[in-house]
C-alpha cells in the first residue's frame, strides 16, 4: 500500500476524532465559566450543582481531547517528517507556542481545578477555571494560526529549498485565519450549547427530579446556541471571499484556477492539482446542516413561559438534532483540509513530499493500531458521557465534599 495514503488516512482519522472532542471542550468550558461565575456572584447553590454536573461531563470529554491531541502532535514527526524538514522553521513556531502558552497551562490549571473543590478559596478556584477557558481559546487560536499558514503560507522566504521565517506578524494577520477562527469558536459554542440543551431536554422529557436545575441549563444552552449559530453562519459565508481568492482550486472552476494550475504545472511539473470532489460535497452538506441549525432559532421564543417544556415536542427536536453539529464540523473540516489537496502547504509543499520515508508495513501498523485504540476509547468515552448525563445532577463525583475527618484513609464510599 501507498505510505502517503496511509499517512493521510491516519491523520484524517486522528484529527476527526480529536475535533469531535475539542469542539465540546471549548464550548462547554465557556458555559462552565458562566455557571461558576454566576455561582460565585450570586452564591446560589443551584449554580454550584450545575457547575459540578456540567464540569463532570466536561472533564470526561477532555480525556479524549488530550489523548488524541498527543497522538496528533507526534504524528507530525512520525509520518510527516518532510513537513518539519521543509517548513518547520515557520510552521513549528505557532505549534511550539501553542504547547507552551496554552496547553501546558490549560492542563495544569484543570488538574488544580478538579482537585481544588473545597480545598482552595472560592475566588482562586474560579480563577483557575477562567485560566482553563482562556488557555483553551489561546490553544484554538494558535492551532488555527498554524493551520491558516498551511492554507495560505505567508511571512517566509525559501532559501536552499527550506522555508525561513521573515515576518511573524504576517502569520497573525493571515486572511485565512480571522474568519476561520471565529467560525471554529462559534461552531464550538453551537455544539456545546446544543449538547447542554439536549441533555437538559432529556431530563425534562423524562421528568427526572431537578426540574429547576435543568430548566436553567436548557435556557442557557439554547440561548448560547442561538447567538452562536448566527455568528457561525456569518463567519462561514465570510470565508468564501478570501478563501476563493487565495485558493482558487478549492471551490472549483474559473479563470483564476486555470491560471494557477498552469503556473504550478510549469513549476512543479504536470499533475492533478484539483482537490477530490469529496471536499465540495462535504461543503454542500455542511451548509445544509448549518441552515437547518439556523432554523433552530425558531424554538427560542418558546422559552417564554416555558412553552418549550409544556409542548414537549421542541425538546424532542433538540434531542434528535444533537448529532447535526458533530457531523457538520467534520464536513467543514473536510472541506477546508481536503480542499487544499494536493498540497500540505498550499502552493509551496506538495503532500507527497512531506510524508516520512517509513515503510508501508510500519505505517499500516500505526494506522490500524491507533485507529482501533482511539476509536475504542472514543466510543467508551461517549458511553460514559451518556451514562453520566443520564445519571443526573444528584451527586457527581466532581467536587464532592470530603467525608467528615474520622478516618485517615481515603474511603471507598466516595466511589
Amino acid at each position: 500500500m501507498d505510505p502517503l495514503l496511509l499517512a493521510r488516512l491516519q491523520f484524517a482519522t486522528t484529527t476527526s476524532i480529536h475535533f469531535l472532542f475539542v469542539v465540546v471542550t471549548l464550548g462547554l468550558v465557556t458555559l462552565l465559566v458562566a455557571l461558576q461565575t454566576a455561582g460565585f456572584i450570586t452564591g446560589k447553590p443551584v449554580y454550584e450543582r450545575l457547575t459540578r454536573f456540567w464540569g463532570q461531563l466536561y472533564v470526561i470529554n477532555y480525556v479524549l481531547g488530550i489523548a488524541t491531541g498527543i497522538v496528533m502532535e507526534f504524528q507530525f514527526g512520525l509520518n510527516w517528517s518532510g513537513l518539519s524538514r521543509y517548513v518547520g522553521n515557520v510552521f513549528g513556531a505557532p505549534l511550539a507556542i501553542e504547547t507552551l502558552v496554552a496547553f501546558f497551562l490549560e492542563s495544569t490549571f484543570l488538574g488544580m481545578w478538579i482537585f481544588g473543590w473545597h480545598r482552595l478559596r472560592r475566588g482562586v478556584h474560579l480563577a483557575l477555571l477562567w485560566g482553563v477557558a482562556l488557555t483553551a481559546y489561546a490553544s484554538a487560536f494558535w492551532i488555527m494560526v498554524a493551520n491558516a499558514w498551511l492554507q495560505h503560507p505567508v511571512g517566509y522566504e525559501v532559501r536552499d529549498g527550506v522555508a525561513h521565517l521573515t515576518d511573524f506578524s504576517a502569520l497573525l494577520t493571515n486572511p485565512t485565519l480571522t474568519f476561520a477562527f471565529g467560525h471554529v469558536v462559534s461552531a464550538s459554542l453551537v455544539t456545546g450549547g446544543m449538547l447542554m440543551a439536549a441533555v437538559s431536554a432529556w431530563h425534562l422529557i423524562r421528568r427526572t427530579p431537578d426540574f429547576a436545575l435543568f430548566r436553567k441549563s436548557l435556557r442557557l444552552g439554547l440561548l448560547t446556541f442561538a447567538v452562536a449559530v448566527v455568528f457561525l453562519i456569518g463567519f462561514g459565508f465570510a470565508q468564501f471571499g478570501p478563501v476563493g481568492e487565495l485558493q482558487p482550486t478549492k471551490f472549483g472552476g474559473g479563470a483564476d484556477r486555470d491560471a494557477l494550475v498552469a503556473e504550478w504545472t510549469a513549476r512543479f511539473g504536470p499533475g492533478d492539482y484539483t482537490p477530490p470532489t469529496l471536499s465540495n460535497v462535504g461543503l454542500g452538506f455542511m451548509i445544509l446542516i448549518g441552515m437547518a441549525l439556523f432554523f433552530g432559532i425558531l424554538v427560542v421564543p418558546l422559552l417564554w413561559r416555558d412553552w418549550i417544556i409544556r409542548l414537549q415536542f421542541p425538546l424532542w427536536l433538540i434531542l434528535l438534532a444533537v448529532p447535526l453539529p458533530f457531523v457538520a464540523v467534520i464536513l467543514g473540516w473536510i472541506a477546508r483540509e481536503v480542499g487544499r489537496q494536493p498540497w500540505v502547504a498550499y502552493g509551496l509543499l506538495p503532500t507527497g513530499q512531506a510524508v516520512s520515508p517509513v515503510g508501508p508495513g510500519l505505517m499500516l501498523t500505526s494506522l490500524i493500531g491507533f485507529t482501533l485504540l482511539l476509536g475504542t476509547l472514543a466510543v467508551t468515552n461517549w458511553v460514559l458521557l451518556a451514562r453520566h448525563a443520564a445519571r443526573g445532577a444528584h451527586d457527581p463525583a466532581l467536587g464532592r465534599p470530603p467525608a467528615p475527618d474520622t478516618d485517615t484513609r481515603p474511603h471507598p464510599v466516595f466511589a
Partner: protein
Amino acid sequence: MELAWYALLGLFFATYLVLGGYDYGVGLLLARGGTLAARRAALTAVGPFFLGNEVWLVAAVGILFGAFPTLEGELLSGLYPAVLGALAGVVLVTAGVQLRSRPRAGSARAGWDRVIIAGSVLAALGWGAVLGGLLQGVPLTADGHVAGVGHLFTPFVAAVALATLALVAVQGATFLTLRLPAADTPSVARLARRLVPAALAAVAAATLLGLLSDRVRAAVARPLVAVLLLSALVAALLVARTALGRGRAGVAFTATSAALALPVALIGAALWPRVLVSTVDPAASLTVADAAASGPTLSLLGWLALPLVPALLGFQAMCWWVFRGRTDGRAPVYW
C-alpha cells in the same frame, strides 16, 4: 542560542521523565493487586499532579518542533517503533487514570487498572528505547534520512528500556512513600528498597552491553562525562536506598528523581555537539546547530520563552505547593 534551546529541551524532557516517571511507576505498582481501596489511594496520591505531569512531554515535543524541526522529523520517524510504543502507553495511561473511576462497578475499575498497568509498561519501555536508540546512533544517510528501523532492535536498546522500567518502578514506589498516609508508608518503602537493587542490576547490564557495543562506543564522544554521569546515577540510587531505610522519603524521592533525569543529561553531554549520530556515515551526523531552526524563529521563540518559562514553572510550583503533604481522609478523590 542553540545551546540554550537544547538545554531547555533537555530540561523539559527530563522533567517529564521525573514527573511522568512516578505516574507510570504508580501505574506499574497497581499490578501488585491489593484492594480496590488501596489502588485508589495510590492514584489519589498522584491525583492533582497527573494532568500537570504529562504536559511536560507535550511541551518538550513542542520545543522540539519549534526549535529543532529537522531533529523532530528524523528522531521521531527514525525511532518509529519505540516512539509508537511510548505513545500508545501514554494514551492508555492518560485515558485509564482519568476514566477508571467513572464506571461504578468494581469489575470495570479493575479492567481499567489493567489498562493503566499495560500503558505504564509500554510508556516506560518506549521512552527507554528512545534513549537507548539515541545513544547507539541511527543509520542516518547523507540525504538526511534515517534508513529503516531495524537498527533499533539490539540488546543494548532492550537493556536500556528495561533499566528505564526499573527506574520508573523505583520512582513510583518512592513517590508513594512520600505521599501516602504515614500508616501506609512502611510497606511501600520496603518495596522501593527492594526495587533499588533490581534497578542497579538493570543499569549495570545496560552499561555492560553499551561497552560491548561498537555503535555505542563510536557514538559517545565524551566517555569521561558519560562515566561521571553514570556514576552519579548509581550514587543517586544508593542514596535513595539508604534514605528509604531511614524513613527520609523526601531525600529518597529527590535521589530517584535525579536518577531518572540523569540519563537525559548523559545523552546530551556524551553525544555533544552531535544529537543524532550516524552509524553509517560520520559526516552525515546531525549536530545541534544543524538541527536547530533558523535564527529568526529561535529569537522569536526566545523572546516568548523568557517571560513564559518562569510563569509555567510558577504555576506548576503552585500546584505542588497547594497539594503538598500526605494524602488523608480529606484529600479530594477523583481518579
